[in-house]
């Protein structure tokens, strides 16, 4: 069982830290919501003693757009453009899960080729999201140029998404019933070019970040998550894998076409910020490999969409389901309840950051140096819209 080191200060009474701000020993410090070291729009209410954090509260609500409520007031097809907006760096997971949940309760089977295209979309989006993450992570440790390189390469990926789906950030591609378009001519070639560029970038990042004495000194040993914390805090995804857990939805509960792909679950052992970086770094290569594997199955001549009932008055019989997928941050899920009307009764979005950024972060941050708070947050890859859909 993990117990944060509270030996210095303050005293714990009835499970609560007794912090007397007037004592002059502590300082209250807000990190965020506008802070380069905070992922997205959230804020940390830190109590520091010297340069060490002794208490932390996570505050969200700066990005609440009420998606779940909005979806209850819109027709099934009208939610399709909404869901992607829950997550900017990786919208496709939302698109896929919403479509998959609706298809399941409505009893719609989608063509195999649509599944391949969705799988391709999901892996490309994973790579894109990781590129943005590694840039932010490097930035949190003061390695600015890597942030610029990585975001540039993310832009190359967005170029591909743009020519494929018509949109750079919000692709709105995986519509219930299948997908909206085939791949454009010459896409495979341009995709391969980009993948090679990214591989080159990765080798450079390895030199500049992974083999960087300063970075290592700060990241190794930062935010260690012990194995027994994993279930207790609901930890999933790369963070759990860095602690040695062989947990990956793609492998454990295969969806789309992942069971036809050749890959292994990447795990680590040390479970600190550096180990988590290593796991994600290797998963980026894994994604590149998966994209190449998927491209062999893409056939533009095949059917990509199952005819839906008229979407303007599409009613779905009463039912409920939970579908999940592996996002870059771990298990992402949609719990959809229908009541036979034209509108969903409830759409609940389960994001991994919900536990990572609140319960886990609040405990993990104790005794961390203020300068490493940003690094710790990015190593958890927290993302506020998942908390406050």
């Amino acid at each position: 069982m993990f117990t944060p080191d509270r030996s210095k200060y303050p005293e714990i009474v009835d499970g609560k830290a007794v912090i007397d701000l007037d004592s002059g020993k502590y300082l209250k410090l807000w990190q965020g919501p506008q802070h380069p070291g905070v992922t997205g729009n959230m804020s940390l209410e830190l109590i520091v003693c010297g340069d060490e954090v002794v208490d932390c509260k996570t505050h969200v609500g700066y990005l609440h757009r009420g998606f779940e409520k909005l979806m209850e007031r819109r027709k099934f097809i009208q939610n399709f453009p909404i869901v992607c907006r829950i997550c900017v760096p990786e919208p496709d997971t939302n698109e896929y899960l919403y479509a998959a949940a609706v298809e399941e309760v409505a009893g719609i089977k989608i063509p195999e080729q649509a599944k391949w295209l969705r799988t391709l979309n999901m892996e490309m989006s994973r790579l894109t999201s990781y590129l943005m993450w590694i840039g932010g992570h490097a930035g949190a440790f003061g390695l600015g140029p890597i942030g610029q390189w990585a975001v540039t390469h993310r832009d190359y990926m967005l170029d591909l998404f743009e020519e494929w789906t018509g949109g750079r950030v919000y692709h709105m591609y995986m519509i219930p019933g299948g997908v909206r378009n085939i791949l454009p001519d010459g896409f495979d070639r341009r995709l391969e070019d980009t993948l090679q560029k990214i591989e080159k970038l990765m080798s450079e990042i390895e030199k500049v970040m992974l083999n960087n004495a300063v970075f290592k000194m700060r990241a190794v040993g930062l935010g260690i998550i012990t194995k027994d914390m994993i279930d207790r805090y609901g930890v999933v995804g790369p963070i759990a894998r860095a602690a040695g857990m062989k947990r990956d939805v793609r492998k454990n509960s295969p969806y789309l076409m992942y069971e036809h792909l050749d890959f292994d679950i990447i795990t680590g052992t040390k479970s600190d910020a550096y180990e988590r970086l290593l796991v994600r770094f290797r998963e980026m290569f894994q994604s590149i490999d998966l994209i190449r594997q998927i491209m062999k199955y893409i056939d533009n001549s095949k059917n990509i969409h199952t005819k839906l009932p008229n979407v303007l008055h599409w009613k779905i019989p009463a039912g409920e389901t939970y579908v999940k997928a592996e996002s870059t941050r771990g298990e992402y899920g949609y719990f959809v309840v229908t009541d036979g009307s034209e509108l969903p009764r409830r759409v609940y979005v389960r994001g991994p950051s919900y536990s990572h950024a609140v319960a886990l972060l609040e405990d993990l941050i104790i005794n961390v140096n203020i300068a490493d708070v940003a690094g710790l947050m990015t190593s958890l890859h927290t993302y506020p819209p998942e908390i406050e859909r």
Partner: protein
Amino acid sequence: MKEIIQRLKQQFTISNVNQQRVDLTFLSVKKEQAVSLISYLRDFEKFSHLVFLTAVDRVEDIQFQLTYMLHNYNTHQDLGIRVLIDREKAEMASIHHLWKQAGTYQRELKEMFGIDFPGSPRVDESFILEGWDNIPPMRRDFDTKKYSEETYFPRPGRESHDPESYMKSKLYPEGDA
């Protein structure tokens, strides 16, 4: 999964078992037995992961449906536990002692649905909505459109016509052939 359901039936009153997929099952349990059932599943059936906890407003039945989604990493099974609670006096026993993140879910449910979880840490602190003075917004009877019309100002200058009535006014006004 069937064996687990059998074992559960020996100790708990469960109903409406629905196997939605090979790896996803839903079942309903009485409010009084819910926490012990969930503890049993966690401690003896290896449902060690709390995937989520959320509510569905069954306003027509004056009930809230809580759904606890649990996951077993050994068999890769998801199990959704439905618990119906009274909507008028919405209160449920807390499970924050079982999972750390449960407190966050319960805090959100208190704020968004008005479901109380006595004893849950910081359950009364506002989570997302600071300074909210209306009914809990995720309740079905909270009308977002009405709220936004009352709270914000629509920009003037927009008007739309329904093709059907517009054509009537142009082509065959009342009584015209």
